[in-house]
């Protein structure tokens, strides 16, 4: 892992593949599954393999941000001390916390034909709302920042954490949505609200505009007109950039990592997201399952001796690999037999050995069963992704990849402490590598 050279490691694991064969890694998944931490840990793994790496985080936990030295929103990456990370020659880790407003301002500066026009836009009320409140802006700016860092940052690897959106796919569609917004004919009409032009728009739209003015007040419409006028002539620049961003995302050097928790709802969402990505022609390169419950005893053996033999018609317990629906249902039904952890006032003062035994055994069984059930919950998704991965033309052609590059399913066990400092991050990067090797 800390060998310090890229690309020619003797027995590379799938995490090394991920960080060495991609120049961009996008971590996506639903909210609350540990995307930020995963992004930072993958970036650290990249830096530890000797690459100049930058991680763009969105809304990291404060203590993690402090550990990374990015307590405030920054618009430029800051380096993390290589000594603290014990990075090999060439390995660097840079981090930044996305500032959507500053990023948007930078974009306006870039495309506004004059200083005055840039100022006019930045003072416009709708622009201010757009940058601070509007959902979609954060997604768009994360994409913009990613593009900028890839084009101009000189990094070997940029890892980007995606914003917690309702639909994670918003992130990918955000640039084209903004362009669509700026180019909409209604917008053009607002730019040139002449009688001639009004004839060209539908009666419905005319009626609608009049109503807007009536119900929302003339100020809103005036503000909107001023906003669109201020943007005049900049659509072209925005469109070209949005097209380049879409292209970047689809390049083979861009790898998507799907992050999920082992909970059913998160896995369902990850599955849906993987399908949408597939439709967009994007293959997921790795699946990270965060915070899976640990196994304390080799689960199958324990359960076999404890439970299976006592159940007359119990199906054979799964081997932990590709699961079947029935095995999952079986585990769930077992779990439902174990009494739930109910709140009692006097747990701490129980003295009867039999009661203590039952309480502590129930605890063990809950952990074992939930760990096994979790494996089954995500194994179907992992199998789908692996199949799609094998059919990916880039891999089938073997152009860049060594033969038989496996699909990475990286399992990060729930640790006794949550990751909030560099040590924790190192431990997580280690766990990623260990799981990827297994």
């Amino acid at each position, binding site marked *: 892992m800390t060998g310090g050279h890229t690309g020619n490691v003797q027995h590379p694991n799938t995490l090394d593949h991920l960080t060495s064969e991609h120049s961009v890694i996008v971590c996506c998944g639903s909210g609350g599954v540990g995307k930020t931490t995963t992004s930072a840990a993958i970036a650290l793994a990249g830096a530890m393999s000797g690459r100049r790496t930058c991680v763009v985080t969105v809304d990291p936990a404060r203590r993690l941000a402090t550990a990374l030295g990015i307590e405030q929103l920054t618009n430029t990456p800051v380096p993390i001390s290589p000594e603290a990370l014990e990075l090999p020659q060439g390995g660097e880790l840079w981090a930044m916390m996305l500032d959507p407003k500053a990023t948007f301002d930078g974009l306006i500066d870039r495309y506004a034909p004059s200083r005055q026009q840039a100022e006019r836009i930045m003072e416009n009320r709708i622009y201010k709302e757009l940058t601070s409140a509007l959902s979609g802006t954060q997604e768009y700016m994360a994409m913009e920042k990613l593009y900028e860092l890839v084009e101009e940052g000189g990094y070997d690897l940029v890892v980007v954490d995606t914003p917690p959106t309702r639909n994670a796919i918003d992130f990918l569609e955000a640039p084209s949505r903004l362009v669509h917004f700026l180019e909409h004919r209604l917008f053009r009409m607002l730019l040139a609200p002449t009688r001639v032009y009004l004839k060209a728009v539908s009666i419905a739209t005319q009626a609608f505009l009049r109503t807007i003015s009536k119900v929302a007040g*003339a100020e809103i419409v005036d503000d909107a007109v001023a906003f669109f006028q201020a943007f005049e002539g900049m659509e072209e620049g925005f469109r070209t950039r949005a097209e380049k961003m879409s292209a970047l995302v689809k390049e083979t050097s861009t790898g998507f990592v799907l992050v999920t928790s082992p909970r059913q709802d998160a896995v369902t969402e990850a599955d849906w997201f993987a399908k949408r990505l597939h439709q967009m022609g994007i293959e997921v390169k790795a699946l990270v399952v965060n915070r899976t419950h640990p196994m304390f005893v080799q689960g199958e053996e324990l359960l076999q001796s404890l439970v299976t033999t006592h159940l007359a018609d119990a199906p054979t317990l799964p081997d932990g690999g590709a699961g079947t629906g029935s095995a999952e249902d079986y585990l769930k039904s077992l779990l439902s037999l174990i009494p739930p*952890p109910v709140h009692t006032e006097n747990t701490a003062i129980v003295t009867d050995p039999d009661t203590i035994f039952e309480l502590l055994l129930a605890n063990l069984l809950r952990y074992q069963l*939930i760990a096994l059930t979790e494996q089954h919950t995500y194994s179907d998704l992992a199998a789908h992704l692996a199949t799609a991965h094998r059919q990916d033309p880039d891999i089938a052609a073997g152009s860049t990849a060594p033969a038989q590059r496996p699909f990475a399913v990286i399992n990060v066990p729930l640790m006794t402490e949550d990751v909030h400092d560099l040590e924790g991050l190192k431990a997580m990067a280690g766990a990623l590598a260990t799981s990827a090797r297994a």
Partner: protein
Amino acid sequence: MDLVTFFRQNKVLIVAGKGGVGKSTVAATMALASARAGMSALIVDLEGKTAIKTAFGMEGSLDYEEVLLYSSGAGAARARRITPDDALLEYLADHSLKRISKRLVSSGALEVVATAIPGIRDILVLGKIKQLERREMADVIIVDAPATGHAMTFLTSASGLLEAARSGPVRTQAQEVVEFLSDPSRCRVVLVTLPEEMPVAESIETAYQLEDRAGVTLGPVIVNGCLEPLPPADILSEANKKSFLGSLHGPFNFTGSETIKITPSIDLLEGMAQAATFHDHRRMQQAEQRQRLAEELPLPQLHLPYLFRPSSGLNELHALSESLSRGIAGIPDPAGEDADTSDMPGVPGRKATEL
């Protein structure tokens, strides 16, 4: 405080929290708890998700039409969806624009206008919720709010729009929404969190921002996923294991189940010791976070247990609703003249975060 008193404090409870903390489960738990207390509860979901139905052991996503999720005697829990698009179309229909609304949607004009009037979608959704409240569609209306970040935008949209729109019905609507949100007898926000570093930090931050910027009153904080205590595991230590094994009588089978019969062994005790140590360690971490939350956010906490299920259904929801009811029973009555309660957040006239 008894359950009915708790739910009668105001009609609308907005459930907010970071993604992944179990917001929808908590909304469903509150609905079930109030239904079990004989009240009618209506869950309003803003995204048309499947989580609410799943929590009640049903399949599919929520529709615009109400669906019955649970009933028992006089009590019932229902749910429906109000997405911004639903609310916008309804608003257009109310303003005699129904005829053209379809074409506006298909041409994308609606989207452009909604984007050009920031906050309009949120105002319309909140306006619709306010209407449900006014029409007394249920005893309790529980709103499954968007994930925080979005929730902040959602709840501050009205005051933002008040600054932008200086006349017209939209301004009136925004004004009414601001009044509704800031009236603790009509609406409260319930924050959901997990007893972990990041969710706790975000809840504290969100709580202060919500009071300052959205002017809402906060109800108790729901701490989800709490680990319950175990008997001390030192009895399973290397030194004690053998004698403990010898002291067991048995037979062992889990309550209500004849199918799981257990034979104690040293190996089994070893596994039990490891699991108990892990559990205790995480529970101590949780206790630290709960403590931190209590210190930095002086609001009552309601604890919901972690149930060790990768997915949940109606049985789990009943268990959670019982825990919630126990927690609510432990909240002091705010109506009393009790000297203690003068410091309690949520008391009219005093902001929770002023302490």
